[in-house]
């Protein structure tokens, strides 16, 4: 597959020079073939969250390669009404505003009662709790609204993929305040088209340091541990982040690391943590300290001894520099390419992708120095992928289902009701930023096809079809009747696409909201 596309690149260089039609056998790697209507719909459900009539029209005739480049590098637009909602969201506040308030040593304390108590609450909430809840809900809602309304849905899908790969839990201590910034930080890294950039963006973000308990991990022979010992306290190592870096973020559980590597990596990343607002400037600027945003490397907690990680020696005394070296080592490890290739292929092709294709993707990852687009190239160029666009068979994850059903129902009407999406995603079990375990949500049919899940989907289809859900409702309220999405049968049919004979027969005679509910709950619409 790769050699074929490679040959074409050599033959004609840049795509623009290839105006002369090539013989069919050479011209058409699937990645360079314009999408027809069926493939465009499938593409929008694969590298997007569903098709509406406008996005279908815009996607037909585009090539997968172009769409992938656009997903990584292209601009993202939201309908003006939604852009205004997002700009006014509490989650849009930069971390430089939030950190002095809610970061460690910040001015907003645990025990200050909220100025305005939430309704229906029996206990008195602190302002900090109220703000935290509001900020996290806004972060989750904004991510869903962006995914639902984007004109560059491939970008949203890739961003959500990496957010899920480097999963954090928004409810872990101060992560409520950090979740939205984590999204923006990974988004910027995605634009660099580099796995290492994503890995660093995640590792050096306070939300990951907090989530996997690295902020207090301290070398037992460090200055800080020695000071603590004089007070009768014991400080030491916490392995959590080191293990998940190896197991989940890079090499994968079968990647060949051992417990000794977990321990070495845990020692390497001692000192990595977050900035305390009350840390004296002298400590912040001390020799060997490193500040990156609100990430802070404190040499007083670091293990300066020599280490050996996955067969590579780390000489003593390097400090924070060795973290960068280690992250690069992990990103370049062959097992990392295999791990990521398999995960991408399972997300974007099938639960059991062809091993040869996964191997080709892993090789592309390695050759390109971990470029995301290069890793996906063999997938887009594979005949398996092209075939899958004509006969989509992968069971939609809840988020795929929710957003594609909403898109079909609203058909271009801006969806601004973050509260609806946030609650629906939670009920379906896949709210972004709220996975409690670090493995992220699964992408397989076995993860999601259950009786309870199907009941929820049927119910959602019935609710959407009723035309009473205020999906377009603005946060400040307004006319509720104007804010509903009333689905149109033609739009829903276009979103669902061709039906099997069984489905067509079952639909015969249905009309109005019954037909729409049945289409949205059809087996065809549950797969992508």
């Amino acid at each position, binding site marked *: 597959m790769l050699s074929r596309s490679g040959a074409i690149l050599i033959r004609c260089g840049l795509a623009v020079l290839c105006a002369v039609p090539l013989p069919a056998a050479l011209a058409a790697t699937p990645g360079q073939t314009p999408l027809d209507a069926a493939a465009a719909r499938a593409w929008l459900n694969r590298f997007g969250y569903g098709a509406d009539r406008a996005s279908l029209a815009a996607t037909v005739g585009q090539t997968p390669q172009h769409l992938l480049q656009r997903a990584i590098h292209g601009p993202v637009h939201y309908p003006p009404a939604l852009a205004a909602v997002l700009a006014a969201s509490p989650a849009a506040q930069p971390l430089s505003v939030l950190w002095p308030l809610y970061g460690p040593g910040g001015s907003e304390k645990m025990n200050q009662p909220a100025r305005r108590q939430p309704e229906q609450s029996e206990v008195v909430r602190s302002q900090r709790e109220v703000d935290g809840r509001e900020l996290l809900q806004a972060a989750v809602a904004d991510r869903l609204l962006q995914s639902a309304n984007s004109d560059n849905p491939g970008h949203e899908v890739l961003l959500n993929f990496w957010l899920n790969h480097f999963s954090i839990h928004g409810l872990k201590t101060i992560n409520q305040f950090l979740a939205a910034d984590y999204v923006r930080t990974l988004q910027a890294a995605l634009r660099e088209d580099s796995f290492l950039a994503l890995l660093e963006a995640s590792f050096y973000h306070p939300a990951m340091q907090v989530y*996997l*308990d690295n902020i*207090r*991990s*301290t070398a*037992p022979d460090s200055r800080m*541990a020695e000071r603590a010992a004089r007070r009768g306290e*014991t*400080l*030491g*190592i*916490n*392995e*959590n982040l080191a*293990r998940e870096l190896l*197991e989940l973020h890079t090499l994968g*559980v079968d990647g060949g690391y051992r*417990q000794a590597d*977990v321990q070495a990596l845990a020692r390497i990343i001692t000192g990595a943590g977050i900035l305390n607002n009350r840390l004296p400037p002298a400590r912040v600027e001390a020799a060997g300290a490193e500040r990156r945003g609100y990430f802070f490397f404190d040499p007083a907690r670091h293990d300066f001894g020599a280490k050996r990680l996955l067969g590579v020696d780390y000489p003593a005394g390097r400090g924070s520099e060795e973290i960068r070296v280690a992250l690069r080592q992990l990103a370049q490890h062959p097992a990392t390419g295999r791990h990521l290739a398999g995960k991408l292929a399972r997300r974007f092709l099938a639960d059991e992708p062809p091993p040869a294709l996964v191997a080709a993707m892993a090789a592309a990852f390695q050759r390109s120095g971990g470029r995301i687009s290069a890793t996906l190239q063999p997938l887009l160029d594979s005949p398996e992928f092209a075939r899958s666009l004509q006969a989509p068979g992968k069971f939609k994850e809840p988020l795929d289902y929710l957003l594609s059903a909403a898109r079909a129902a609203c058909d271009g009407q801006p969806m601004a009701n973050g509260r609806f999406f946030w609650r629906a995603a*939670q*009920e379906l*079990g896949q709210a972004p930023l709220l996975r*409690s*375990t670090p*493995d992220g949500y699964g992408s397989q049919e*076995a*993860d*999601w*096809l*259950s*009786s*309870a*899940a*199907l*009941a*929820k989907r*049927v*119910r959602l*289809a*019935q609710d959407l*079809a009723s035309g009473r859900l205020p999906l377009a409702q603005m946060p400040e309220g307004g006319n509720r009747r104007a804010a509903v999405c009333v689905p149109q049968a033609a739009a829903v049919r276009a979103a669902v696409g061709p039906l099997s004979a*069984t*489905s067509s*027969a*079952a*639909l015969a005679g*249905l009309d109005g*909201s*019954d*037909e729409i*509910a*049945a289409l949205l*709950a*059809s*087996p065809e619409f*549950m797969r992508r």
Partner: protein
Amino acid sequence: MSVLHFSRRRALLGGLAALTAAAAAPTAWALSQPQRANGRLLVVFLRGGLDGLFAFGPTTDPRFAELRPTLSRPLLEGGLLLARSGFAAHPALAPLAELYASRELSFAPCFGTTDESRSHFQAQDLFELGNGQTRGASGWLARAAQAAGGELRCVGFGSEQPLILQGAAVGRVELMPLAGAARQVRADRALAAIRAMHAEQASGAAIEQALATQSELDRLGGMDPQAARGANGVAGFPKLAARMAQILRSDPRLALAFIDLGGFDTHAGQAASLGRSLPALAEGLLALREGLGDAEWRRTQVLVCSEFGRTVRENGTQGSDHGHGGLALLLGGAPGRLGGGRLLGDFSGLAETALYQRRDLPVRLDWRSVLGRLLQESLGFPSATLTEVLPGMPGLA
């Protein structure tokens, strides 16, 4: 004695024991034990890796305090002694200590799988697959449901289908979400079409199951919209347990049941987080017992365990990291061979040489040998069936 015998053998055979011991296991065991085919097995799976030593700890071992300077305190200061075991229970687990005294609970401090990865997810997969491997087509509880066949029912309490319940024939395993929105699928013309469209597919079977479950739960008083949403946090367990008991009691054919609870991955500040989780766990188990009533409690066995235990040594942040052997609790009103106020498997102390890779509790009681015994006692499975459900089982505990 068989437990001791087995674990010594296992130590001799090393890591491959799981694969090789099945053939050598004395198969007559299964038939020689009293059977109680009219039983029920409920598995309460604590995801995240419960620190068993924090819940039930060997307070008489002098190294306990030394290895766990802060984490040993609750047990050393207010632990409830568990007679004849050298262990004490965390004060928040007082109800469980009482069940131990009344011989309705026993515990295994070194229970576990063959996991060597210390990965939550790999270890959970191993536990749930029950085939001794990290991959497989079905979970052991699904296979048990399949083997039980006939009238018996197997239910998972929750809305996602965990690996342990995957892979059985359609209809053998049911899911009952106990919490979440109380809205129901409407029986309208659309629904009839939806059922017809899905009829030939796995999704169709799932929809039929969902509708059946909906009407059954409806009959029993609907879902509780107040209870925790989605994944079950342990905080909501007491409420869920009462509801589970009501459902289990409503149909004696509900012979296999499963629930998982999250929130046990305690790398930092463990005393506070487990200080909240353990009372909820104990309260829930008690609610289950009360909800079932004496007669049903006598035919029920409950296994409570986690994917692995945690490091014996406290880590640097008043927590513990991923380990190996962990705690299993067995509860029931008519304890069988594994029941009744005692320590199961053996425990050889906290000396470094007694630990797995010098850091974790070893596994002295293979999970399959416990599951096999429980299935044999609850459902009367003969040994051939047990071998199908738990391939590689190294003999019954």
